[in-house]
């Protein structure tokens, strides 16, 4: 079977500005690939090219083994940031409309909490449920590829957990999923990650591969404020964690030297994914 998404050296410019620069990306059936990056990193542009809404300027792009087309569009469930729900229809009417548009039959099992609000107008739903309804709508035609553009943006943690649960269910059933997010904490919900920064891929791989054996130095002192001022003044990359400090990109000996007479308990700890992302972007 053809790979759902395969991009190689993909590029796109707008008004002479490279929005997407030589991006490689593969999404296989049965996996969630997370597309991480800030606003403006190029995530949405990549998705729009996969959908066939934008033409790349360069590189190769294959969706189920061929350039994007009406046939590939039928296989894709696309959740745009704007959600694409009809606010003056009920939840049930929205779902029925989606099924009719794709010419698919009977109800498929839906999110049980949505069944309870089937008769409510979308306009009356709180944001968390609205996002879940939009996701259900995307699933109605049983797509083999899910392209989800920031499905959890602005959603509370409980509804985020529910949304991810539904994504993983669809992928367990054999779909492929490409999910963009700017929450680095959602990286752990993905099988593989592609981290974008200013149009380029800053890093790609599993979470464990990307973090590797990178380390940070944790500093516990009586006065974090004095220690922060000393380390910051020494030009180190230092962050406050509660009442402790974390230093990235410096070894414990250098941190001890910068602290001088202030001292403290220094320990070398595995770097967090967020810390690694910052270091990679800084270098990129």
């Amino acid at each position, binding site marked *: 079977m053809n790979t759902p998404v395969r991009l190689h050296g993909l590029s796109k410019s707008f008004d002479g500005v490279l929005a997407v620069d030589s991006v490689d990306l593969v999404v296989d059936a049965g996996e969630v690939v997370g597309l991480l*990056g*800030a*606003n*403006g*990193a190029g995530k949405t542009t990549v998705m729009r090219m996969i959908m066939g809404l934008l033409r790349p300027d360069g590189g190769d792009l294959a969706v189920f083994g061929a350039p994007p087309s009406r046939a590939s569009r039928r296989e894709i469930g696309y959740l745009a940031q704007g959600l694409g729900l009809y606010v003056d229809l009920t939840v049930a009417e929205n779902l029925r409309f989606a099924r009719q548009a794709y010419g698919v039959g009977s109800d498929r099992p839906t999110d049980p909490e949505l069944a309870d609000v089937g008769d409510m107008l979308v306009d009356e739903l*709180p*944001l*968390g449920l609205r996002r879940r309804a939009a996701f259900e709508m995307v699933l109605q035609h049983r797509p083999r590829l899910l392209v989800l553009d920031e499905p959890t943006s*602005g*959603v*509370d*943690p*409980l*509804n985020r*957990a*529910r949304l*991810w*649960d539904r994504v*993983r269910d669809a992928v367990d059933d054999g779909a492929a999923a490409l999910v963009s997010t*700017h*929450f*680095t*904490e959602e990286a*752990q*919900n993905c099988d593989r990650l592609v981290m974008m*920064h*200013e149009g380029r891929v800053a890093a790609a791989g599993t*979470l464990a591969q990307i973090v590797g054996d990178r380390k940070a130095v944790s500093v516990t002192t009586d006065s*974090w*404020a*004095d220690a*922060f*001022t000393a380390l*910051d003044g020494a030009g180190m*990359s*230092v*962050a*406050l*964690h*509660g*009442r402790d400090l974390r230093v990235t990109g410096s070894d414990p000996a250098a941190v001890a030297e910068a602290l001088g007479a202030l001292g403290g308990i220094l320990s070398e700890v595995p770097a*967090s994914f*967020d810390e690694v*992302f*910052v270091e990679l*972007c*800084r270098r990129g």
Partner: protein
Amino acid sequence: MSWGVIGLTVRYGRRTALSDVSLRAEPGTVSCVVGGDGAGKTTLLRALVGAAPISSGVVLRPATTAIGYLSAGTGVYPDLTVRENLDFTAQAYGLRERKYRGLLERAGLADVWDRLGGELSGGMRQKLGVTMALLHRPQLVVLDEPTTGVDPASRAQIARLIAAAAADGAAVVFTTSYLDEAERAGEVLVLDGGVGLTEGGPDKIVAEAQGQVWAVAGRPERGFAWRRADGWRVWSAEQLPGMAAARPDLQDAVIVAALQHRQRQEAA
């Protein structure tokens, strides 16, 4: 003097935007308000700086001139340069000294001194907004979603600006929808639908969920369960067959707090 709100309720007409919410903001401490869209984060900050009507409760804050506030927009003037934006802010606060080179270097803005506000990237504009809020060394710093959608390097720089302000003795309050940022704050308030779900230091919030979150191999038939990287978690007051002890993190603890709140609501 410590700042914050106690038992704060804010109503707009019939709608209750905040209901009996409390938050402490101590000098030299970073406090974080976390929640989704519509949770009431912006209303809380607006009440704290004196820009929202208070229906009941107490707001403790210094004089307006001792508050630095970054609203949900950045407050950066698009047709002024970075320098002019800062000069304008300095004038508004009657600052004689115009020594903001250090602040700008820390924010990574030293090289864009002459660029127009409207030509800055989202991350840069946000960093300038934070810098403007800190310029007069306020006692209380209030920042509304300073890092949402911002690139990781700029997020780290904003975190440094915040930590430096707290190290200098300010009480800092900021809102975010990122739990990993909340995890690093000294004090956390989790808001949902205008109600405080849980509050305190991140360690305390996690400790409260201890003994209620269990690891299970697959989706259980009953109870609320959610997936984590290494399998499933389920919320249960007691350990049932097939459940193993799990060490909750802040994300698990917030989910538990939301479920407990829902249970209380259904009981009422």
